[in-house]
């Protein structure tokens, strides 16, 4: 279990570094979308290994509604760029 989580955290560090390094707003959005998916899958993995479904429900909710916020944010950024 620990090995899987370490590998996941390592994979999570790449988009975090990218979001910190890059100034272009779309590259940042891309990195943030990747971080969102990866962390919610990590929440699911932890909940399965601990056999605790209160955590798991949180992960599923993030997966099912979380990306909608990012899509709205992308549209707002696009509109702001048009002005």
């Amino acid at each position, binding site marked *: 279990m620990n090995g899987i989580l370490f590998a996941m955290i390592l994979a999570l560090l790449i988009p975090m570094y990218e979001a910190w390094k890059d100034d272009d707003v779309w*590259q940042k959005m891309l990195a943030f*979308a990747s971080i969102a998916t990866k962390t919610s899958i990590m929440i699911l993995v932890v909940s399965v290994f601990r056999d605790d479904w209160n955590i*798991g429900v949180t992960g*599923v909710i993030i997966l099912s509604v979380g*990306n909608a916020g990012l899509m709205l944010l992308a549209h707002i950024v*696009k509109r702001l760029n048009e002005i």
Partner: protein
Amino acid sequence: MIDLLSYGCIGIGIFFWFWGTFPLLGERSVLYKLHALSVADTLGSMSITIGLLLKIPREWPLILLALISLAIWNTILGYVLAYCSLEQETHD
């Protein structure tokens, strides 16, 4: 046997994650990175979720919901990001 299969699925998923996330560090265009990232994140995460489903079959409704929302939302998010990041063109 089932245990081995589930660890195999999780391993494949993590490999996909690394494979698709490394292009983020390069100096390529946004669309190239978006393509690699959406393929890797969606397929890799779905593989990990299937591995979890094999591990705990009694919670299948929740995991199935996670699987379906991953498949739908991540594809739509990819399209929306690609559309929004393009330069403004008049479509009328």
